[in-house]
């Protein structure tokens, strides 16, 4: 799975938040890289910078300084519109609180990343979204409104949505945090399976050591720095 060129590289990444006169440094010179096809756990206590790192890697937030390259693109100075397009094509998100669009069906939610890029829902995308829902075991729920699904079902729809545009990287923030044990197990099995079959890179932020144990690599943050790594 692992090829020579890293999927992404961050170097000396710093993120400071200024709230009036108070300045807080959340990421403090962080450097790391991710290779294609990796299945990585991101660990660390609250306030260690996990969420901020995911936001920057997801191009939702700009760092204060440092370098960030992905797929050979320097994303630090990119325009907002270019970052949006890059995010749409190369990055998928799975949030702790599924974050589905409640007025749309499961199928429409999965199709959203493709439809918003093309400006319409195409038959090809409809087929792909149906396949993904089938893959996450929700083919029979495709026309259900998102608001009518259970917590575990919503999270599996969110996983399918994250994979809709065949991204190179999926960022998952506590993907099982709001689920019961059985649903959490099913979601993790799904992510591992997708990583194995599609070769998609997963970076999973978690507090759960059991989940971290299922990942092939662990990155531990402390006070915005890399504290420890396990390969």
């Amino acid at each position, binding site marked *: 799975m692992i090829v020579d060129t890293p999927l992404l590289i961050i170097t000396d990444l710093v993120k400071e938040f200024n709230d009036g006169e108070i300045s807080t440094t959340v990421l403090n010179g962080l450097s790391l890289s991710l290779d294609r096809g990796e299945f990585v756990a991101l660990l660390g206590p609250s306030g260690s910078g996990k969420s901020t790192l995911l936001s920057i890697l997801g191009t939702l937030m700009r760092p204060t300084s440092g370098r960030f390259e992905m797929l050979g693109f320097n994303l630090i100075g990119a325009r907002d519109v270019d970052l949006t397009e890059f995010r749409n094509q190369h990055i998928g998100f799975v949030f702790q609180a599924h974050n589905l669009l409640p007025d749309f069906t499961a199928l429409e939610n999965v199709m959203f990343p493709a439809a918003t890029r093309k*400006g319409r829902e195409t038959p090809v995308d409809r087929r792909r979204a149906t396949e993904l829902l089938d893959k996450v075991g929700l083919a029979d729920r495709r026309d259900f409104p998102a608001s009518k699904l259970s917590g575990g079902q919503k999270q599996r729809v969110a996983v399918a949505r994250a994979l809709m545009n065949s991204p190179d990287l999926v960022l998952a923030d506590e993907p099982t945090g709001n689920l019961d044990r059985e649903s959490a197990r099913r979601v993790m099995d799904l992510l591992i399976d997708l990583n194995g079959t599609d070769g998609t890179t997963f970076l999973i932020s978690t507090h759960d050591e059991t989940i971290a144990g299922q990942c092939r690599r662990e990155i531990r943050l402390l006070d915005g720095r890399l504290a420890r790594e396990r390969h």
Partner: protein
Amino acid sequence: MTYSFKVALRYLASNRAQTALLIAGVAVGVYIFVFMSALIGGLAVLLLNRTVGNIAHVTIQAPDRDPVSLYGRDSGTLVAILKSVQQRTTLQSAAAFLPAIEAIPNVTSVAGVVAGNGFLTKGEAIAPVIVTGVEPDQVSAIANVAGNLVAGSGDLTIGIALIGSGLAKTMGLQVGQRVSIRSERNIDATLLIGGVFSLGVSSVDDGAIYVHLRTARVLFELPDGVSRLEVKLDDLRLAPEVARRIANTTGLKSIPWTEKNEQLLNGLVAQARSGDVIKGFALVTIVIGVASALLLSTYRRQSEIGIMRAMGATRRFVVGVFMIQGGLIGLAGGLLGAGLGYLSLLPFPLPEATSSTGLPIAIGEGAYGTAILLTFIGAIFAAIWPASAASRVDPVKVIGP
């Protein structure tokens, strides 16, 4: 269907009660707009019909005579240029112009009249009158004399006079009585009152007399030609334009009614402006209503906007979703308001038939298309601020990984 259109529709459909309320609010504004347009238009129609509906919309006269240049007897230098005002201006070859004038669009009738001033006497009572001589078949071509008779008949044979109701009342005259008329050229004629009309315009009813054209020729010593041609139009608002065309076609002096009724025209313009202000307020209310509702929707859907942005939706897409919502609300409210406005105006009689206590509503003056178009544009305009606010939502703040 574009995807932003689908999302906008879904958002509107997902909260039907709010959307219905919003559309109803817009519809009320449009209804006020339509009603005010019909009322102001109706008032204008009523005023115009009552004041200038029974006069010539365009009066055609002979061109002014060339001024006379006076030179000094010895020096030969120009001493003065005198404009002739002592001679009557008459149209000697009026009949030759009739086909060309009648062929001009919007002209419904043309009548040649011989007119002048005179005095009507009955016993010792004397009243100044304006005598108008017309061919019998043209007695109602300009003023609807036959349709506004209060006594007698409209048959205008030689020796018969049709007089205004005010004049009849002042002089104590009735149909069947004989009266004497002395014209401005000191020629007398005795006429039988054949009918009394009431046009509702005091200046006409109090001093106008219609006589046969040949009677007028005698009274005013005009064996040939006419004093003027009077033109009636199907739309009296087009009078200035038609007058220009007549002047260009015939070379004659054409005077639209607007030139002689400037104060009435100013009053109508002021009335229309007042209506525009009220309609403007209705539009502003619509814009504020749509803007506030969409702004509320923006705040309520912040997390969804954040999700969309995280999934790769551009700011432009988000702006589009909210602008389309504004446009759809404006269009639906505009159509509903204009439709209801039209239906509710249907039972009103025409302004001409309105009683003195009723509202003079002109259903054709409802400005339905303008109301819908302005509401549509206004609602899109109202959506700019909410849409802009929505596009600036920071996904990290509202959903954050």
